[in-house]
């Protein structure tokens, strides 16, 4: 059952998102993508193409704002990729062109051992972290308190993939759990520093991607390596935190619900009803419209079905499961808020 329309007056987008993250009543379910809604079509619309929109604050802010101004979502997320702080840590990045995301060159790792991990003195003034901080300031100035501005700070597990390489990091986790924990403990400083800087710049909430996905590691791994760190993030970063983990995660949702994270951005590989049952109102869910098969490949009718499936399950914030494919049609994205509003209208007329 949704926490909507319980004697709640009209809300603006920011109020709606923040209430849903606290699992408080809302006037309608907010539409939100805490990862990215950038598309090539939107880049053309506001003349803010990749890769520059990942590196120049004005372009980043302009492209990010389209989720609110063009698509009708209730949040703005200016960080379109997952590479900003890894670049500032020293990882090499393939910046690509307008039609592709920038990616860390994980085959060229910068760390081999725990002692290699150093957060550079210029971590928060590096072009690629500074860009995010400045973009948030621009957005806050432009939109005031009308829409939720969400920042993004990568968790230490994801940074481990970037800085050590995926396979070396996963093997380390099996061969030497103590050293792995020491690495995570040092990398968490980057997560905290970047998160605090974005809060200071005006972020209302933070997405924290930490890709301990069921496609790579077990739920037991999440408990062993990340649950306590995530509790620490929820305590130290004084805004609602939205944890993002791709893939199958039902086997670790119980542990996630114990962290104090405000919300969990979940993947379409997980069933909304079952996920809500596991969360038991301890953590909000955000998601979980399928990207490659639905938003990218099908039409508005199919998008609507997935929106309704989430609404019927009581999911607190509805949106795509992850950063949407850059070639996704705007028509499909606009269908999400449209379907949400119509579902609520229909429910209201039934009462």
């Amino acid at each position: 059952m949704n926490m909507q329309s319980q004697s709640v007056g009209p809300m603006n987008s920011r109020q709606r998102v923040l209430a849903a993250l606290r699992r408080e009543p809302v006037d309608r379910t907010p539409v939100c993508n805490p990862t990215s809604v950038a598309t090539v079509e939107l880049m053309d619309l506001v003349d803010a193409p990749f890769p520059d929109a990942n590196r120049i604050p004005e372009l980043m802010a302009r492209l990010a704002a389209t989720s609110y101004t063009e698509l009708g979502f209730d949040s703005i997320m200016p960080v379109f990729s997952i590479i900003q702080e890894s670049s500032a840590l020293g990882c090499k990045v393939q910046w690509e062109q307008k039609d592709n995301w920038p990616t860390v060159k994980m085959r060229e790792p910068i760390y081999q051992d725990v002692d290699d991990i150093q957060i550079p003195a210029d971590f928060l003034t590096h072009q690629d972290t500074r860009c995010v901080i400045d973009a948030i300031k621009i957005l806050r100035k432009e939109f005031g308190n009308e829409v939720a501005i969400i920042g993004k700070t990568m968790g230490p597990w994801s940074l481990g993939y970037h800085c050590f390489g995926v396979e070396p990091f996963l093997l380390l986790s099996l061969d030497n759990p103590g050293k792995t924990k020491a690495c995570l403990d040092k990398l968490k400083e980057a997560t905290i520093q970047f998160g605090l800087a974005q809060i200071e710049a005006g972020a209302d909430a933070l997405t924290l991607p930490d890709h301990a996905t069921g496609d790579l590691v077990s739920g037991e791994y999440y408990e062993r390596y990340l649950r306590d760190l995530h509790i620490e993030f929820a305590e130290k970063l004084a805004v609602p935190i939205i944890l993002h983990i791709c893939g199958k995660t039902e086997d670790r949702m119980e542990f996630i619900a114990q962290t104090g994270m405000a919300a969990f951005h979940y993947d379409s590989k997980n069933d909304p009803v079952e996920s809500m049952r596991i969360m038991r109102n301890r953590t909000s869910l955000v998601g979980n419209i399928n990207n490659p098969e639905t938003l990218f490949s099908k039409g508005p009718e199919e998008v609507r079905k997935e929106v309704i499936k989430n609404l019927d399950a009581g999911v607190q914030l509805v949106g795509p499961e992850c950063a949407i494919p850059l070639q996704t049609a705007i028509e499909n994205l606009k269908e999400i808020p449209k379907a949400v509003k119509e579902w609520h209208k229909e429910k209201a007329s039934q009462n």
Partner: protein
Amino acid sequence: MAEIADITHEFIRQEIEEFIERPEERQRTINTFAKARPEMQAIAAALIEGENDIVDQLTRQALDSGIEALEVMDYGLIAGMGIVGIKFRQNFIFVPEVLACARAMKAGMAHIEPILSAAGVEPIGTVIMGTVKGDLHDIGKNLCIMMLRGSGFVVHDLGVDTSPDKFIEAVEETKAPLLGMSALLTTTMPNMGKTIEAFIDADLRDEVKIMVGGAPVTQDFADDMGADGYGKDALACVALAKNLLGVVARS
């Protein structure tokens, strides 16, 4: 038909009983290990546990004692990886454990490959694998390669960010009859279709079977692009490769 009691190694018996649920896979595994001598079962057990030093040592000992390299590969290493693949597919183990098993397999193969190569023993198939242009993700592709190698294929790994020209060059150079492409990003998936078109333009499409996979890739997408097959995971990739090449198990 062999029975589980015919397998001497207790750990292997436990692994089969605990983790192999599908009746046909269970019987096939029992048949293989019932024929395997105890030394081979011990190699398989060490591999399943990811103990690369022990696999290294036992493989050397087996070869020194006069056991054929092909037997060590088929009944020790490949048989062990067979159980690893099933456990991975069924989510009993995850990528870190598979990486450790693949490392152990590699330790054993380091002794076996030179012998097989010198003896002119043909692999069950040769495959070219690569992540498509614009995509730097390779864990899925690498898992497929581990399982393919663990099943006796020779794999030429082209790495990440592979252009259509590089795929074509590799097929021309190696004469491999099978090519596998991987993509993790929706933005790079279309490059699979572009690579297939490049093979058509180069008049090489009939020379090579093409299989595709990756998190956002689906059977429908593979069909639309004109691929010969789609594998949803690493074990499916091995089954598909065998099917496309008409491979019959050596044993």
